[in-house]
């Protein structure tokens, strides 16, 4: 039996965001935008979805005069990510 792939992570942009956050302590909205090349609106929507699932924490604040949105992955997010990678591995092993 295949492990089911988490639909929340099995989408290009959301997976990219989670991969970035798993490798850094904290990432700024602009950093995510730069690394993914996606539009700000699209990123906002996906961040909201991931945050609603408890996978990441969003902190809004000010840095000088600019607004700053910082995101960091939660332990639930890390677990979900690890499970997702395990599921992908089981798919690939099955295929091989």
């Amino acid at each position, binding site marked *: 039996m295949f492990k089911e792939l988490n639909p929340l992570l099995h989408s*290009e942009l959301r*997976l990219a965001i989670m991969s970035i956050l798993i490798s*850094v*302590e904290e990432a700024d909205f*602009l950093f995510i935008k730069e*690394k993914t090349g*996606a539009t700000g609106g699209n990123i906002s929507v*996906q961040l909201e979805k991931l945050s609603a699932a408890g996978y990441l924490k969003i902190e809004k604040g000010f840095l*000088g005069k600019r607004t700053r949105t910082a995101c960091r992955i939660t332990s639930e997010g890390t677990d979900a990510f690890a499970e997702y990678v395990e599921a992908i591995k089981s798919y*690939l092993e099955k295929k091989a």
Partner: protein
Amino acid sequence: MEDKILNEKESLELISKMIQNSQQKIKAGNGVTFLIFGYTTLLVSVVVYYLLKTTHNQLYNLVWLGIPVIGFTLLYLFRKDKPKYNKTYIDRVISNVWLVVGSGVFFVSFAAGFVRIPVLAVLILLLGIATTITGLVIKFKPVVIGGVLGMLSFILPFILLGYEQVLAYGICVFIMMVIPGHILNYKRGKKNV
């Protein structure tokens, strides 16, 4: 990048690409904190040395407070318009090392107002330890060497008696922070071009 569904292979490729991309190198400009505090310490120690030497009034030791005041103000001004996009684990390690050592520095300096302790020796040792750890974490030899020299120079205040140790302290901090700070900015700056 769109909100599209990937196959398993594409997923793995995307994960590894994103992880690689976000592991950025230590950026140029990281030597700035060293430079700000190194130059400020040198300047303040020269001023303290001059005042103590000419007046012999120990109250002028309060001028040391100029280091955190000037240092943090300059640091704030420098960073104000440069938002940091991401924070890595290395950033967290370094900032925590300096937070702990910085607290130690404040505690020792404060205590020195009440009890007789070889304050400059303790401070240079503490700062040397933090600088060495920073150098090891960012894997940059000149900072490690500067830090070790700093640690070793804790002996100077015991050898030099009188106000000269104040001047020696400023020079030691200069060698420990300013020289590696300039090398760091120069080398890492070139790599990022």
